[in-house]
């Protein structure tokens, strides 16, 4: 029903936003699962990290840019000062921006971890931190999907 009343020009921006969001969600699932189930196997640890870097990061950028495009198309930036931005939009921004920052932190920690692994050093703490951040982000994305679809006030 929402799509039926949404102007056609916004459909493509929404499609790109959804594709980006699901790609980053899938990469986070793959990363967290690979590192959690690695049992010390380097291949799975590397798979976990490179899922984030090569799949998750492009997905995150696509989601954020397409989301901003949709925001501009729907004229949310032109709301009068006396009207507050809806809560679901705020939740979306928090998850995309603060979540994006956390994502970059997990990439940096994981990158150092992979570098240490390559040089035969321990990286358990760093990769555990990457996994924990991925798990937090998975929960945050579930909340964001619920907020953006249910649109609670």
């Amino acid at each position, binding site marked *: *029903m929402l*799509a*039926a009343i949404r102007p056609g020009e916004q*459909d493509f921006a*929404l*499609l790109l936003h*959804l594709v980006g*969001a*699901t*790609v980053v*969600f*899938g*990469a986070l*699932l*793959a990363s967290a*699962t*690979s590192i959690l*189930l*690695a*049992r010390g*196997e380097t*291949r*799975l640890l590397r*798979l976990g990290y490179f*899922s984030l870097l090569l*799949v998750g990061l492009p*997905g995150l950028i696509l989601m954020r840019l397409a989301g901003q495009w949709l925001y501009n198309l729907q004229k949310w930036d032109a709301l009068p000062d006396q009207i507050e931005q809806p809560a679901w939009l705020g939740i979306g921004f928090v998850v995309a921006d603060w979540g994006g920052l956390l994502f970059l932190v997990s990439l940096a920690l994981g990158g150092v971890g992979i570098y240490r692994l390559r040089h035969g050093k321990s990286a358990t703490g760093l990769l555990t931190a990457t996994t924990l951040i991925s798990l937090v982000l998975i929960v945050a*994305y*579930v909340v964001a*999907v*619920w907020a953006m*679809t*249910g*649109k*609670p006030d």
Partner: protein
Amino acid sequence: MTFEDWIFALHLLSAATLVGSLVMSWIVVVSLLSVHTPGETIALSRVAMVGTVTTVVGLIGAIAFGIWLAILRDAFHVWDGWVIAAIVLWVIAAAALWRSFIEYAKPVEKARALIAAGETAPSAELTASNRASNGLLLRVLASAAIVLIVIDMLWKPGA
């Protein structure tokens, strides 16, 4: 949020889980192409198993909450053309995914047999099994069907 809003949110959460799991399964499938040893095949199968479970949860949730929503909402019906198209595409995706799970179980069985026989070195036969095209083609078919469902849901042709 009304009851209908909750069903809509659960429908889209299931759809996001499904597409996210599909992305995850593609990461595993691509990684499997460069796996040559039984140990690595088994290790990747552990990750694939989580992807399989979340895919099944997403598939079932998306269709169940989707049909429920079509019954609840007055604006559209289960017999609308775009809803029927989505259901047909869902059946194609589910069947292709089910067959692909069976195809990707074959190299895992082979890897287990090799380990049981004490062979842990790279195996040409196992590499060929990991790179078999049957599972890959079925995964491509399922992915194409799911992308078409997303497009059908957004544009709602004929609505």
